[in-house]
């Protein structure tokens, strides 16, 4: 498929372009009874009391490579094991009547090291069985929040998966995948089959980043630009503008939880240093809308590069890779 075709065939422009497309759409018909994703919103759901959090000795870790948590019947949230990758990102899996959206693929590339593909396939099979769907007729969209390897490393595991489209690893392909022409302001709508996902640009941590809003659970997924930990802000102005867009969004839309990609902070607001593989007391991944608003209010007072604790997150304004707030514990005078 050339680039023009790829952009034309993106997931949002769900217009069949050829006879094959029509046949394809018809083949979807009869794929189980439709699930209603539009009544009784927000759909109830719950986060676990604690996620897998690594272990004191990595080689003695007995947790699965990815924890699969069913937030509700039609929403799974995955978390990578800290003993497989210290980044331990979270990855939501949203199910619709026709399509399934996987956001983020974790930080281990090879299937024999960490079999995300197998875990996602098993999770899809489980959901399909429960809901009388045919897994072969469900289309899988493999996307990611932003263009960093700890969020797309495993994307190649899905390369030969049938009925699957995955996001390319350039800014143009990412924006084109969602059919955007006016990044980051443009807000597009992805239809998973009765379940609507709203997507818009959220640059600042990196240029190529999106915010995803699931209208069914009303979870706002903010990637790495806002999460419980160190928000590494590479570009302040775009980040601030993205925060403004998030605030504008929560002003006009109901949001149950704001969710980031990592947790790097303890329940007692202790900073877990970069690369740590054992976080027994880590804070929950989900945040409230109020925490987002408070952070934005705090951000208005930030004028210089540096590390700021807002009460919810650490804003690392242009300090990435240069320093952290850690001190050598054995310093003496």
């Amino acid at each position, binding site marked *: 498929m050339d680039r023009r075709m790829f952009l034309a065939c993106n997931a949002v422009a769900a217009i069949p372009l050829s006879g094959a497309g029509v046949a394809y759409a018809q083949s979807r018909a009869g794929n189980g009874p439709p699930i209603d994703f539009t009544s009784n919103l927000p759909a109830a759901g719950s986060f676990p009391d604690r996620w897998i959090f690594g272990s004191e000795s990595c080689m003695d870790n007995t947790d699965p*490579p990815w924890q699969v948590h069913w937030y509700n019947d039609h929403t799974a949230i995955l978390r990578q094991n800290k003993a*497989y*990758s210290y980044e331990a990102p979270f990855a939501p899996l949203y199910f619709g009547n026709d399509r399934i959206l996987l956001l983020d693929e974790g930080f281990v590339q090879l299937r024999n090291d960490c079999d995300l593909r197998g875990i996602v396939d098993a999770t899809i099979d489980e959901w399909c069985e429960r809901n009388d769907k045919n897994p072969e007729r469900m289309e899988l969209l493999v996307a990611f929040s932003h263009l960093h390897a700890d969020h797309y490393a495993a994307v190649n595991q899905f390369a030969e998966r049938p009925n699957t489209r995955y996001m390319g690893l350039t800014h143009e392909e990412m924006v084109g995948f969602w059919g955007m022409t006016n990044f980051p302001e443009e807000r597009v709508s992805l239809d998973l089959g009765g379940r609507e996902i709203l997507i818009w640009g959220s640059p600042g941590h990196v240029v190529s980043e999106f915010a995803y809003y699931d209208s069914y659970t009303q979870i706002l997924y903010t990637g790495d630009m806002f999460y419980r930990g160190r928000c590494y802000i590479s570009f302040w102005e775009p980040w601030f503008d993205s925060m403004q867009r998030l605030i504008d969004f929560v002003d006009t839309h109901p949001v149950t939880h704001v969710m980031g990609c990592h947790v790097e902070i303890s329940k007692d607001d202790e900073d877990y240093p970069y*690369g*740590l593989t054992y976080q027994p007391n880590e804070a929950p991944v989900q945040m409230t809308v109020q925490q987002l608003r408070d952070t934005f209010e705090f951000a208005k007072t930030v004028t210089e590069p540096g590390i700021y604790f807002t009460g919810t997150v650490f804003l690392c304004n242009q300090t990435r890779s240069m320093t952290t707030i850690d001190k*050598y514990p054995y310093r003496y005078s």
Partner: protein
Amino acid sequence: MPQNQTYRPELSGNPQSSTSRSYPNGNPELQYNRPGVRNTDSAVPLHPAAPVIHDYASDGPAPGNIAFRWAYGSNVAAKNTDPRVQVMQYNEDSFILRQNMCVHWEAPFTYLLFGNKGALLIDNGASANPAHYPLRETVDAIVARWAKARGRTRVPLTLVMTSGEDHAQTKGLAQFAGRPDTTIAPTPLAAMQEFHGLLGKWPTGTSSIDLGDRVIQVIPTPGTHKDGLSFYDPYCDFLFTGDLLFPGKINIGNDRDFVASLERLKAFADANPVKYVMGGHIDMMFVPGQAYPRFRNYRPYERVLEMEPSLIAEALQYAREVQGRDLMLIRPDFILLNGVSPDQRTNVWPADVPQIRPPHPF
């Protein structure tokens, strides 16, 4: 005893020899008792009737080598299958132990030295749980095997530490509690000073631990830790420096003490033969000036452990440079961090250090 250690494959019957002539069945022209023969296990009787007394007096450093590379963790730490304690026998009376970096990222080194009257364990690892890190079990096995070869029924063991406050070097102590015939140096500063007989002469005095014809020198070297100690082994000519000087990111605890300790160490190295400085960890990669970040449990491109003694002078020179400044300073074999975050990075790359990009692992 000097000996020619050069391995000459063509003389050892290696058919892959670079010379055209090979001796697949041995070369009958060679003498049967070549120089190296005297320094192998054959010197120890198979079933000794009485304790074998070893002569630790040697011209120059005792022979020995670090012949293998260190285990370097794995991309997925949960799937690591390396030994939890890697044991490298440097020579018959000196062992280097290393903790698997997938058990603890600090991957500290532990040294086990034997003398005619006992054994010394310098440092003891970063994990207390014997299921994760069976240091006690490993040391017991090495001691038992050594004792059998030397015809001993008991080998008193002494545990000392390059720093009593360093969590990466003292966690294994718990495993040795209650071990018979074992002396453990206390960890609090004053008690440690009293144990080593350094009370009142800290940090300028020295003391010694006699292992039986192998007398280990104890040198106070505060600087990275306030209770820092270095040990000198006159048999192997090793200087064990712990966190004070090692191929890695050296976090300075007090720069005045750090400079003073390096000065004393340099004076000591000038007055005594030193073959290698042996630190407590490795952070550096095998390319100059670059180090692995903290918590990394996959380090396929590590620098070797041993440091040339000339690095003491270099460390001293640059320690004086960072003294009184909050600074990160890069050198080819170590990085000095004074008053900054342990994760600190810098854009200042020294002009005299070649900048080589290491290959990126999978």
